[in-house]
């Protein structure tokens, strides 16, 4: 699938360019898949070419070698750092296909990775990410190191704190007797969630049928091939003119079989894959929704705890207890945390609002392209089928005019 975003230029929040006459641009392409390694260790490496005039980047062009797990690293980092933003999805890991590494699979993966990186590069906020710069520029050893750190068992301290807090909140839930999970209940948000969940189902179904349609094209192609062969053999048994007519018919049939196989491939790449891509996209939005839920819960709980601490503090202050000092410190700490959590949550909400709009526009555009391609392809196929068979008719007429 053509990456349309490649050519779109970046707008908005970039620094002033080096030279006033050129607009800022950041364009990335993922190319040239090469299979490396052997057997179970085999993997595909890609060339990632970055062309840019942004000051944060080195030089007008930079080429690095990356593998699938590097992309995974990048995505995980972005997902952590930019909560609320719909980080574009990656193509599936697919442990099974890996072993087969068919040309088709490799190409589909490359195309999907290309789209992934470009979507990130075009996102006004995410494009400024340091991790992105690392991904696009760091040499392979550095990249390997980064990647190893992330997927290793060494988690960052912040993560540990988060895990601790999660446990803590679960415990306090139990203690406080809260059974219902804390959730946002605004009508608008409910609607959004419902929309996203349903959308996934609809897209998944459409994708399923699209995939079957690809298969049908292939099957029809195959049966045309077999039919053509059989008809030619039949023609060989018959005398003239039927024999020649059958032979012509068979040849045409075989020819059309090739066209069908080609179209099958087109439908797969330009129609089914985009649909699959959007199913994944919606799934990643669901993950963002989950993040929002977590942030909301935190915000609520911390607010609650802050409230309790405040009440406690007031009580202590009234009784002029010597625990006041301690309590005050605690109170301030919790209050600060609570504010952080609230800000975090609100940022997610704001981001999501913008993201939804962006997502819909992007979806409309990209789906539009996919549909258009599909319709064009089908029209082309149908017309070439009509042409091929039509060209046979004069010959058939001529043959049947011959006195049998």
């Amino acid at each position, binding site marked *: 699938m053509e990456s349309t975003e490649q050519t779109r230029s970046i707008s908005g929040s970039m620094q002033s360019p080096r030279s006033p006459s050129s607009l800022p641009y950041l364009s990335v392409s993922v190319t040239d898949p090469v299979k490396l390694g052997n057997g179970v260790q085999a993997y595909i490496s890609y060339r990632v070419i970055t062309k840019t005039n942004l000051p944060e980047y080195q030089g007008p062009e930079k080429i690095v070698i990356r593998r699938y797990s590097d992309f995974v690293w990048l995505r995980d980092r972005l997902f952590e750092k930019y909560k609320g933003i719909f980080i574009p999805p990656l193509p599936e890991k697919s442990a099974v296909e890996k072993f087969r590494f068919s040309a088709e699979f490799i190409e589909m993966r490359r195309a999907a990775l290309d789209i992934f990186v470009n979507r990130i590069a075009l996102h006004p906020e995410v494009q400024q990410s340091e991790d992105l710069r690392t991904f696009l520029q760091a040499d392979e050893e550095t990249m390997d190191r980064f990647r190893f750190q992330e997927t290793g068992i060494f988690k960052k301290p912040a993560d540990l704190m988060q895990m601790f807090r999660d446990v803590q909140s679960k415990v306090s839930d139990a203690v406080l007797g809260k059974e219902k999970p804390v959730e946002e209940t605004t009508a608008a948000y409910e609607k959004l969630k419902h929309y996203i969940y349903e*959308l996934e189902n609809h897209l998944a179904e459409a994708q399923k049928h699209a995939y079957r349609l690809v298969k049908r094209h292939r099957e*029809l192609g195959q049966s045309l091939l077999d039919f053509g062969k059989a008809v030619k053999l039949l023609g060989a048994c018959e005398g003239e003119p039927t024999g020649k007519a059958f032979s012509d018919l068979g040849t045409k049939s075989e020819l059309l079989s090739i066209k069908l196989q080609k179209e099958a491939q087109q439908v797969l790449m330009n129609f089914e894959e985009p649909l699959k891509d959007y199913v994944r996209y919606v799934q990643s939005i669901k993950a963002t929704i989950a993040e929002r839920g977590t942030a909301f819960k935190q915000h609520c709980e911390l607010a609650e705890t802050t409230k309790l601490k405040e009440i406690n503090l007031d009580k202590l202050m009234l009784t002029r207890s010597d625990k006041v000092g301690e309590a005050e410190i605690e109170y301030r700490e919790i209050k600060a945390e609570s504010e952080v959590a609230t800000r975090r949550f609100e940022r997610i909400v704001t981001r999501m609002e913008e993201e939804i709009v962006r997502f819909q526009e992007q979806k409309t555009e990209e789906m539009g392209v996919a549909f258009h391609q599909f319709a064009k392809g*089908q029209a082309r196929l149908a017309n070439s089928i009509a042409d091929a068979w039509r060209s046979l008719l004069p010959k058939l007429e001529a043959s049947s005019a011959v006195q049998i």
Partner: protein
Amino acid sequence: MMGSENADGFEETNLNAQRDVMENLDLGVDGDAGGDNPLKKSVVNGDTSNSGYRSAMSTLSNVRDPLSPPPTVMIPADSDPLLAPPSSYEDFRSFGSKPISSDNSYIEPPSYADVIFSPFDENSDSEINGAEDSSLHSQFSDSLSRSPSSSSSDYIKITVSNPQKEQETSNSIVGGNTYITYQITTRTNLPEFDGPSDFSVRRRFRDVVTLADRLAESYRGFCIPPRPDKSVVESQVMQKQEFVEQRRVALEKYLRRLSAHPVIRNSDELKVFLQKQGKLPLQMSTDVASRMLDGAVKLPKQLFGEGGASAVPVHEVVQPAKGGRDLLRLFKELRQSVSNDWGGSKPPVVEEDREFLEKKEKMHDLEQQIINASQQAESLVKAQQDMGETMGELGLAFIKLTKFENEEATSNAQRIRPNDMKNLATAAVKASRFYRELNSQTVKHLDTLHEYLGMMMAVQGAFADRSSALLTVQTLLSELPSLQQRVEKLEAASSKVFGGDKSRIRKIEELKETIKVTEDAKNVAIREYERIKENNRSEVERLEKERRADFMNMMKGFVVNQVGYAEKMGNVWAKVAEESSQYDIEKQSS
């Protein structure tokens, strides 16, 4: 004949339900709504007329598409006998129509059709002898005027319908078996039937077997269309209803083929079968046991001619040896054939007709290729059907998605261009229908291959007649020398006895009589053999011609069909592409 109503299973009903949904879709966007409505009514009427194509393409039989050939509703009343699917019908009616740019009417002619093929006379000829319900193929066959005898005024149309259960009248206390009878209606203007006339009889399958057997006897050397199979394994799967329906269809096909045969259609046997009310007055084929009893009486007479030559009419000799009473003759002919195959000596009359042997070989090859081609044809039909189904499902999924997006839009951004998807969905559903129509037509055309499989069997039968006639000749020929020898021996021996040897002389007389009879029989057999050879030859020639014509028509019909529907689909998709051209990335700048 909505066999599928017996619900082959969940999937079937699901599919039907989906089709109902598709039926009820408002596809009115470009004025197609008008075209949809007749299709909804099509379901009940359409299928009954299309019994013809169901038989061969068993893969289709489970999926009786309610959308397939939209029938009479679309066609003006005066051309009722045609029952042609609108697309082919309109081909020949509406010449003026230009190549389609937009779907004004739902069903449109393939645009080139009027250029290439001239109009046919719609009044006459869908009822042509034995042709199936006016498929495109029979229309073309007419323009090629295949059989010289069928001028447009001759026709005979046979319909088999109305199966009913009847009880055998029986003497036993228990009561007789039940069996099925079928109503056989003939419409014809042939003089042999005192036509033009219309008449009906009721027959059971056993009668058909009798007819087939009598024809086989009377028309040796002819390529007689094979009759439907006698017994079907009464498996649990096949319900009685389905079986009866299949048989009905098969009987109809068989009788139509018989009436299409230029010689057999004039046979007494067929006439009597079609016309005589009440019990069929043809000699029933007897079973082996009663023949054995019969045979015990007639045994000596076969080939011995004792007690006077008149005892056994010589012409019986020329009938192939059947079981039972012809036991002895069977043995002799068997011996002969073994000696033909294994013996050192050449049989007196050899099948020296190299041409015949080559032809036989060729026929066998041809048969193999026809089998192969018809199998691949079935696969092709299945693939087309699947394509249509999946396309339809895709369309439905997108319609649902469109509806969903419109209902659930949380922002106006989503509503901006809902039509893109809707157009695609609509086009997919249309394309799906086109595939189904295409397919039902394809089935009719490619069914020709199945037909000719049947004819190949008929040819084999004709060749077999020839071989068995030759065997009879050979057997008789080899009898003669040994009889002769015996006479000579006896004569030599008796001449040594003075005054004659009464008993020996008598024996010599008898033997001479036998020789005479055998000579006569031999001559008859030779004449019969020659006659059968000639039948073979003319039949094969006739068949070759017919087959070539039919195959040409099949191909043309098939190709015309493919072009027509490909054009239709191309137009539908082109329109969608046109309407969504703002998404054309080639056009998008930079």
